[in-house]
């Protein structure tokens, strides 16, 4: 008897929907940005520190053609960052962010957990006030992701991977002094191929959405 070949499933409907929604948000923000007059060249603020916490959710780390999906579940993140005004409506930002989440696996037969995945990233970018109520942010990040070293994709390099990616999103102040804000950020990070692993892993991108609350310390 020849067993039937497995089939690679297309991305889940939910993931596609989230991605399209996020894309629409970015396009709208980009439009707002274009509509604004150019900012003046005078720096407006000293270095400002901020803390941020919230929850993140990611698309699968791995999709196995046999029907297995490995992904980080919803988990908390914590960020410490700093920003400095470089123009009247534009700030440069940088920071460190850490998150952790259960590594969840699902196949046609069942779902199970396989330990915890963690990530520490360094990021830098720009924030632009596109309307009085909305600030757009975009930036680059480099991250070290770790997980159980017996589970793909963490079986290489003793459970730790280096990735890089891009992020973009919106910051919406919720108080009059604009010290506290809700952040909604999407990112895409690159996972390199693992051609020497058995089974072999083809590289790809991992999407992540973060929703959090930020507070400026001063």
């Amino acid at each position, binding site marked *: 008897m020849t067993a039937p070949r497995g089939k690679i499933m297309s991305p889940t409907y939910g993931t596609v929907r989230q991605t399209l929604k996020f894309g629409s948000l970015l396009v709208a923000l980009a439009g707002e940005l274009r509509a604004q007059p150019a900012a003046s060249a005078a720096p407006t603020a000293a270095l400002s520190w901020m803390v941020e916490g919230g929850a993140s959710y990611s698309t699968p780390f791995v999709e196995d*053609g046999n029907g297995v999906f490995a992904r980080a579940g919803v988990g908390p993140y914590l960020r410490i960052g700093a920003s400095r005004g470089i123009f009247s409506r534009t700030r440069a930002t940088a920071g460190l962010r850490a998150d952790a989440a259960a590594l969840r696996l699902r*196949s046609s*037969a069942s779902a199970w957990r396989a330990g915890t995945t963690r990530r520490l990233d360094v990021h830098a970018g720009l924030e632009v006030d596109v309307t009085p109520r909305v600030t757009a942010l975009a930036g680059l990040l480099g991250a070290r992701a770790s997980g159980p070293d017996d589970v793909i*994709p963490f079986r290489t390099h003793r459970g730790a991977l280096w990735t890089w990616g891009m992020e973009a999103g919106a910051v919406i102040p919720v108080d009059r002094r604009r010290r506290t804000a809700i952040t909604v950020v999407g990112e895409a990070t690159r996972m390199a191929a693992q051609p020497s692993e058995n089974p072999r892993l083809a590289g790809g991108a*991992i999407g992540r959405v973060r929703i959090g609350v930020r507070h400026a310390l001063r």
Partner: protein
Amino acid sequence: MRSAETLNGAVRRLLAITALAMMACTTPTIDAAAPPYDPTALTAGLLYHWPTGRTLDIHVLGGGASPLLDATVRTAASRWTSALAFREHTLRLVDRPEQADILVRDAAIGMPVDTAGCGGARWTESFASTLFCPAGDTARTLSLVNTPGGHAKVLITIDLAGVGNPTDLLPIVVHEIGHALGIGGHSSDPADVMFAAPAVPSPSPADARTLRYVLHRRPHLTL
């Protein structure tokens, strides 16, 4: 002024690139591959395995009297655990038979479970066999003869005296545990531990691929 426009342009480009990257998000992928050998050849197409993600407890009956068998089963369990890509199972040894999912015994020890009326699946190789008793879409719990309780569903029997050379024992035990995990077939390649007369001491990539294939199909029978 010009610098501000340049920066706004950079932000716009980054937003657009990130949006495109998100939309073109291709998940890192492992290709589907047919198993190198038919994992249901000995079960007439019946696919069976344990609930995925479960830790499987193994007890070696009379292990204290046979440290070699005990140590060999421990090594074999570790080799299969390492061969799995997504921690579908963790295999560990337990001290008491009533804690076990899988029992391993030396053929010199009397039958430890009640197999009366079991018309079940049994693979008998030279010096070893694996047994479970199908009951609808699951397998019957094998009642322990001398101990109340227990929930073991698979019994592996090893003829230690027949094996003779201790170095031949590990391939046989790894092979039988492969049957216990869900591979109901034999490879035609001597490089695989699921070859009918196993000679290698670890699951090969082909064995691992076959088990991965089995574990991610909906089974006809859940152990």
